[in-house]
């Protein structure tokens, strides 16, 4: 039988597939009104996103200044032996690690929110800009002394991948993209590793590294 005839058959017979009853407009409208009255409000961008943007900017400036003003090789050799320089290097690393720990906590909150949103429907339109903001900070941290810690670097790189997927997610329409993001989160155990990292807290970070 030809494709055309099969298509005709399908169109004719498939009309009866899950034939909808009359649309219960009033009941659904009441339920929608009740739900909205019960307190669901438009999602607002959390304030930590602005803090994140601020930290990213500070890091960019800090890394830039550090590179520009870094002493030459000879000076490093001479100064490296001095206790003052050692203390300064250590303080810088602690500062970067603290910043990294705060950033990881924000990424964790964002990813948990993202996953919850996708499982209960589509993520909000503000998701991609938020991911881009976090992505910028992540990339700065990858280039910073914080990433000298190998495990932290690996985590930041995995976060970078997931955030870049979310940042490029077109928004609410193609669930295949969401499946890929979900897979990346699962395969790399990103949330578990983030939780482990953030559970260590800033004190642990200062003394033992973020992870």
């Amino acid at each position, binding site marked *: 039988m030809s494709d055309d*005839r099969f298509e005709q058959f399908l169109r004719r017979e*498939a009309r009866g*597939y899950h034939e909808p009853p009359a649309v219960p407009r009033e009941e*659904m*409208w009441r339920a929608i009104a009740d739900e909205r009255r019960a307190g669901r409000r438009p999602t607002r961008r959390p304030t930590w996103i602005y803090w994140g943007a601020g930290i990213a900017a500070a890091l960019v400036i800090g890394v830039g200044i550090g590179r520009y003003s870094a002493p030459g090789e000879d000076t490093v050799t001479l100064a490296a032996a001095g206790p003052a320089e050692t203390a300064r290097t250590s303080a810088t690393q602690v500062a970067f690690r603290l910043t990294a720990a705060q950033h990881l906590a924000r990424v964790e909150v964002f990813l948990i929110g993202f996953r919850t949103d996708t499982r209960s429907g589509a993520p909000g339109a503000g998701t991609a800009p938020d991911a881009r903001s976090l992505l910028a900070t992540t990339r700065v941290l990858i280039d910073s002394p914080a990433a000298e810690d190998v495990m932290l670097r690996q985590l930041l790189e995995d976060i970078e991948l997931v955030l870049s997927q979310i940042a490029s997610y077109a928004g*609410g329409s193609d669930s295949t993209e969401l499946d890929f993001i979900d897979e990346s989160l699962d395969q790399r155990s990103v949330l578990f590793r983030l939780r482990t990292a953030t559970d260590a807290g800033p004190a642990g970070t200062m003394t033992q590294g973020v992870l």
Partner: protein
Amino acid sequence: MDDRELIARVRDGDPGAERLLYDQHVDRVYRLAYRMTGDDDLARDCTQETFIRAFERLDQFRGEAALGTWIQAIAGTVVLNGLRKVKRFRTREVELDESLAHGGSPRAPEPDLKEQLERAIDDLPDKYRMVFVMHDVEGYTHEEIGSALGMPVGTSKAQLFRARARLRDALSEFAEEWAS
């Protein structure tokens, strides 16, 4: 009232405009949700969730597509996500039933063509089924499907082609019946 004016009034908190927006689009959303879920409660849940999200996110609607397409896109995501949850639940339910049955049930009669067609459509992967239902059952164009599901028109056509091919395979034993 055109979409732009309607949206502006909804954003200003006009309850009449909210209701008008709902009335204009609810039938299409509910019909698609019902076709995909085959269940009134689920279809209602999906429809309600779609409009709650639409009202919540109307500020983010930039007008790049028609309002109906945008709402349909939300509906598509809500329905597919809802189906995933239900499928997980039903899989557990079936496993439990099977463990209780111990093979004592009598053999079901052979299904007729109509039943077989329904089963074959049910068995399609959800994304193919969505495209098939939208195009062949509800009469959407490929352009509408592409916009609503966030895929190129070519992908919509390809998925419809694959869906039909699978249905044809599934119904091969009834070839004489459908040919008549």
